[in-house]
Structure formats: C-alpha cells, structure tokens
C-alpha cells in the first residue's frame, strides 16, 4: 500500500468513532502499544522541539527503506506518532519525501488537538521527512 492509502485507511478507522472519548481511548491504546525505544536513542538530537510533550524520533535505513522508531513521555502524543509511523515505515526515502501526510487532519483528531499539539504534529512530520531526505542524500553521494 502507498503511504496515502494507509493514511486513508487510518482516517477511515477513526471515522467509525462518533465520540471524541472513544477516539482518544483508541489513541491511548495505540500509545501504550507503541514499542518503547532504547533509552540511548532518546538523545537530544532525536528530540523534537515544538512539542509540549517530549517526542523522540530516530530512523534506520534498511535495504532502501526507512524504519522509524518513536517515543514520547505523553501517551496521546505517542498514539499520534504511532499513526504517523504506521503510514511511513517501510517506504523509500523518495516516497516519504513526497508523501501527503495530511491524513491526520482527517481523523477528526485535529479539531480536538490543541493548537500547540498540532504544532507538535507539524514538527513530527517535518522530522520524518528530514530523515528521509538525509538518507536520500547519503545514497546519492
């Protein structure tokens, strides 16, 4: 599936909930389920600025595709970032760089997310694309 298709799938899943609390409960579940990343990957350079909660994202380049790992000290943020990773993990740097990652806007979460947290999301998307770009640059050198 393409990143956009996965994004659509995620948005569709969220449409099934008509209550904000159910959406959050699902997000909390996802957050709790996200595998923890190694403490050593919680380096300052993996820390994303622009979020009220702490978010770490690291990435590996394996056989031409990117594998991201993420963690946060806040569960809702963790749930959110897990959605993002589900969409991008296993794709090529090119696909990720050019992906439309606005699907989170369509989960109905955005209206419920406070502006500061939305900014955090923007920062997360930026970081994900930044890693992809770095891998691509390394590749072509």
């Amino acid at each position: 599936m393409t990143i956009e298709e996965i994004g659509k799938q995620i948005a569709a899943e969220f449409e099934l909930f008509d209550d904000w609390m159910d959406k959050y409960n699902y997000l909390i579940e996802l957050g709790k389920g996200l595998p923890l990343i190694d403490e050593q990957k919680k380096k300052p350079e993996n820390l994303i600025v622009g979020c009220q909660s702490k978010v770490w994202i690291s990435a590996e380049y394996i056989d031409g595709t990117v594998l991201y790992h993420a963690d946060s000290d806040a569960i809702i943020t963790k749930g959110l970032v897990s959605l993002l990773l589900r969409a991008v993990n296993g794709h090529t740097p090119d696909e990720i760089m050019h992906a439309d990652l606005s699907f989170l806007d369509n989960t109905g979460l955005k209206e419920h997310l406070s502006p500061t947290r939305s900014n955090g999301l923007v920062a997360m998307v930026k970081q994900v694309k930044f890693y992809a770009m770095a891998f691509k640059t390394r590749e072509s050198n």
Partner: protein
Amino acid sequence: MKTTFDVERIRSHFPILNQKVRDHQLVYFDNGATSQHPLAVTDAVSDYYNRYNSNVHRGVHHLSQVATQAMEDTRRRVARFINATHPHEVIFTRGTTEAINLVAFSFGQTFLKPGDEIILTALEHHSNIVPWQMACQRTGAILKVIPVNPAGEIDPGDVLKLIGPRTRLVTLAHVSNALGTINPVKEITRMAHQHNIPVLVDGAQAVPHLRVDMQEIGCDFYAFSGHKMYAPMGIGVLYGREEWLNRLEPWQGGGEMIETVTFEKTTYNQLPYKFEAGTPDVAGIIGMGAAIAYLADIGFDEAIRYEEQLLHYATQTIGSIEGVTLVGTAREKTGVLSFLIDNVHPYDAGTIIDHFGIAVRTGHHCAQPLMDHLKIPGTIRASFSFYNTMEEVDRLVEAIMKVKEMFG
C-alpha cells in the same frame, strides 16, 4: 460552603463566562494567564473610542484634554491602589515583561559592572530571568539564584547568605505563577535595604489577588500587568520609587519623553514621561482605571476572602483525590493550584480536561528553571478568580476522575 459574596451577580458582569465550550458550560480556570473583563471595563474602553479618542498631552483642543485628563486620573488611581507616594512613580508600560525589561536595561546601563551580582529566585517567570540575563551579557554581571524548598517556598535566610559586596539588586516574584506561593517580599526587601540594595518585585500574580501596598512592602520597583487584573491586554505598570527613577536613564527615546530636542542635544522630560516614549495605550490605561474602580465597587477585600475560600476548597477536594499530587504546598498561597496526576503526563491530562469545557493550563508555565529544580516536566494548573465557583471546582474534580479512568 457559606459565603456572603454574591458570585452569581459578579458572573453576570462577565458575559464571556456564559458560553458553551465543546457542549459544556465553560469553566475558566486560566486566570493566571489572563483574566476576563467585566462590562465596566469594556464599556469604558468603547466609551473612550466612541466619545473622546484623541492623542494625549499634545493638543490644546478639547478632546485631547479630556483624554489626557482620563489618562492622568488613572495614574492617580493606580497610585492610590498600590499606595505609591506620588502618581509620577507610576509608569505605564505594555505589561510586566516590559516593566522588568525597562529596569533591567536602564539599571544595568548605569549600575552594573563586570562581576556585579543580581539575586533572583528559582521560581521566577522567564520574564524575570531573561531580561537580567541579557543585562548580564551586556555588562558582565552575573546571576545568583535563591533556591526553593520542595513545598515551593524560599527561605529569607538564603537571601541573606547570597547578599555580598557585589550584590547590586534583588529581584523576585511576589506570587509564583506556577505554584501560587506568596513570597515574603517585605522581609526580603528589609534585608536588602540593610545593605543598601534595591529590590524589584514582579507583582503580576499578586495584584489580582492581594492588597499590595508599596509603603508596606517598601520595594523600589514593582511590576504588574493589566490583563491579569481584569484590565485590557497591552497595558501594565512599573512602579518605581521616585529617587530610583530619577537615577535611571530613559530606555526608549521618542516623542513625549523629551523636554527639548536639537540635533546637538536632547534634554529629557520629567517623571513619569521620561519613561513613556511615544503615544501610549490610552484605551488600555482607561480600561485599567475602570478595572480598579470595578474592584472597589464589588468590594475587593470580600473578593479576596472569597478567593481564599475557593482555593482552600480546591486544595481540599483535588488534593484528596487518590493519585493526585499537589505541586507547591507553601503555607502562604494565592490564586493557583498546581498538581500532577500519577502516571499521566500533564499534557495528556490537559487535553482531556479541555474536552470537558474546562480551561486549565498545562506545561512549564514559563518557569522552566523551576520545573527542572522540582524535576517534573510541568504541571496542570488551575488558577482562580472571584468569578469562579465551588461547583466549577467540582466539575474539575469530575474531569480528573475521568482522566484517571482513561489513562489508568
């Protein structure tokens, strides 16, 4: 709980409170960030714009005179409100931040040399840290920090320990915005004065909740913001003792602050105008005057007593929820209840609480050094006003229970 304070009548003065947020009646517990405005204030501001908007101190024409009169009346009213000796000790600024920057700049310029020391506390708002760091960068002075204990209190004895031959100024919050602690500013001022060291007090969180009296505290500078005391955003006050203001150089140049200007030399106007360059926020000033009059009308002392009951009730009910830890348990507190819910990030909690139509603040509250000191990422902060009710506190209790359920 029994009270003689008629909160329903008070609430009718604040139309903004009567609205639904996310299908719930709004509960506004973010008064520490900014307070709401009674009709008396918004009416005074629109009356100014609709009837006598005009530039002040410049025209002989009628409207200019009316506006100037209203502005200077407010200056006198502010002076009485904080019991300053003279109206010209009241400088209008954009807010607390600008007031502190003014002193940090002007005082630093004249009185700070390399190796000199500024004493502040570990619980300051960034607005009372960063301007001093900038002054230190310009002058080579350094900061000395008074620690806080786990309850969120500072020990005046520690101030005495830090005061030395190079100490040039002590600056501290009257009330901590993150924890609500009321600091012993009077005692600390007395100690500093024994060594001829001036004291600045950041009164942003104190003025809305306490009777502040410049003569009683004895401090040399006192800064506060209108928008936390029911007046508009964009207006604030620097109180400065006359003898100190006269020793400081102006920090901004422009119209109004001058006496005569030639290209060779400019002489400065007298107090307070020396520190008020450019056209002031006349509407904001008039709004501030109306806010002070409003506080007198409703009975400020009674309002303060009611707020004490409210904080006491919130402390009892929220503090006794299992899994809730209060952050800041000073003996003397006002206005603020900061807390954490076990194993729940403040941000997660705040997101859910917001869905119940309750406005609280989460995060470090612009006091990162304090949060680092307490080794916490931040807190959930409910900050109160006399227009809040015990029932609203109950609503917050319910929301906290829900948060515990969702994240448990």
